[in-house]
């Protein structure tokens, strides 16, 4: 076998091996999207019920809770950026980071310092590489976040929010995550989670809220609910990001598999041509040799 054909065959084998890996990763991600989506849906009853209770409590209590109070001159803001721990997910992390950069620019133009809270190794390494200050970091759960993870992040943010500005307290908390719209569409979005805006709808709701009794009191109930609501918002962001991460990875790996297929096709063509050329050359060499021999005998 001539050298050129051997080289091409080796390359085909290596591309095929890579294709098997990317194909496997594609399938794994596809099955995980479904699971992650299920978790988003399972978290929904809790969040809905919490929102309903919160609305009821807020309409009764005089809403003057520190978590809902707007600061007139905000000096500092936390920006939580949700990225992935691992790569090979296309532009997933960089899109979220870019959205974060946009938000940070906006906050700075309003005269606020930005304290980044980073979730996921990709975001951490982006900030660390640029030598930027990091307010907090959480890694190791981006593809399967637990409620406890969300609570840790939310508690840290709430603590900074409640601290006075002179002691490093912040006046706003924003979160940047990738919204899972559907299988095909995921979108990096920025939302403000603190100060909370308790929806006090002016238009009449479909059903009037029942006249709740509160135990111990509307204020205490609100006190207990608001921090949970913050955690639930963070948890929802983490879950949606996880689903988006798997979707992005599936898409990236599908593209890689398709590319590998194309490459194998192109290399196979090239290898066949090279083999043909080699055979043709061999034949013409044999024919040439035989002719030379025949000519030599005829001349004798």
């Amino acid at each position, binding site marked *: 076998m001539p050298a050129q054909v051997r080289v091409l065959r080796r390359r085909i084998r290596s591309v095929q091996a890579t294709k098997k890996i990317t194909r496997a990763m594609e399938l794994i991600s596809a099955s995980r999207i479904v699971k992650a989506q299920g*978790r988003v849906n*399972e*978290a929904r*009853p*809790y*969040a809905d*019920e*919490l929102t*309903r*209770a919160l609305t*009821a*409590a807020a309409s009764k209590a005089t809403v003057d809770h520190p978590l809902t109070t707007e600061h007139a001159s905000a000096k500092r803001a936390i920006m939580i950026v949700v990225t992935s721990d691992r790569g090979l997910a296309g532009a997933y992390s960089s899109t979220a980071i870019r959205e974060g950069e946009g938000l940070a620019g906006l906050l700075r133009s309003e005269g606020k310092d930005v304290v980044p809270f980073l979730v996921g190794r990709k975001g951490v390494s982006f900030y660390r590489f640029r030598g930027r200050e990091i307010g907090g970091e959480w890694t190791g759960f981006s593809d399967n976040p*637990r*409620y406890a993870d*969300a*609570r840790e992040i939310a508690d840290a943010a709430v603590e900074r929010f409640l601290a006075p500005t002179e002691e490093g307290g912040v006046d706003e908390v924003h979160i940047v995550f990738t919204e899972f719209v559907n299988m095909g569409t995921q979108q990096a979005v920025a939302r403000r989670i603190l100060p909370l805006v308790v929806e006090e709808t002016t238009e009449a709701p479909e059903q009037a809220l*029942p*006249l*709740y*009794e*509160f*135990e*111990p009191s509307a204020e*205490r*109930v609100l006190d*207990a*609910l608001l921090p*949970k609501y913050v*955690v*639930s918002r963070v*948890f929802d962001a983490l879950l949606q990001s996880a689903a988006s991460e798997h979707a992005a990875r599936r898409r990236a790996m599908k593209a890689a598999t398709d590319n590998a297929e194309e490459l194998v096709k192109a290399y196979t063509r090239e290898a066949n041509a090279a083999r043909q050329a080699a055979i043709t050359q061999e034949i013409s060499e044999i024919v040439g040799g035989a002719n030379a021999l025949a000519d030599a005998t005829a001349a004798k």
Partner: protein
Amino acid sequence: MALYVELVSPERSVWSGEASRVITRTIEGDIGILPGHTPLLAVLANGLVRIVAEGGPEVRAVVLGGFLSVADDRVSILAEWSQPADEVDVASAEAELRQAEQAGDADAASRARALLAAASGA
């Protein structure tokens, strides 16, 4: 007339179904919910929720960081963390309690105590 009870945590819906009675404890004291109860929002203490189904078995679950809402015979129990009482791992809860007491973490200690109390009552 029966109650429709939902016990949900952020990670999953733990239990839902019809029941005739719900017995639990708020931070003010024990409370029992029967059909026709007035609308109520209450903060729950860490501890046991008992859901008594009509003629059926009693559902017992530990609820930590919980919250109760009742309206129109729908009872929603929201919990940051919840587990059926008979699935509580007593050994690990005891270890947690010791650890929390040593660290002086009152919150974690109360959680571990609630777990143990629920497990022993089950």
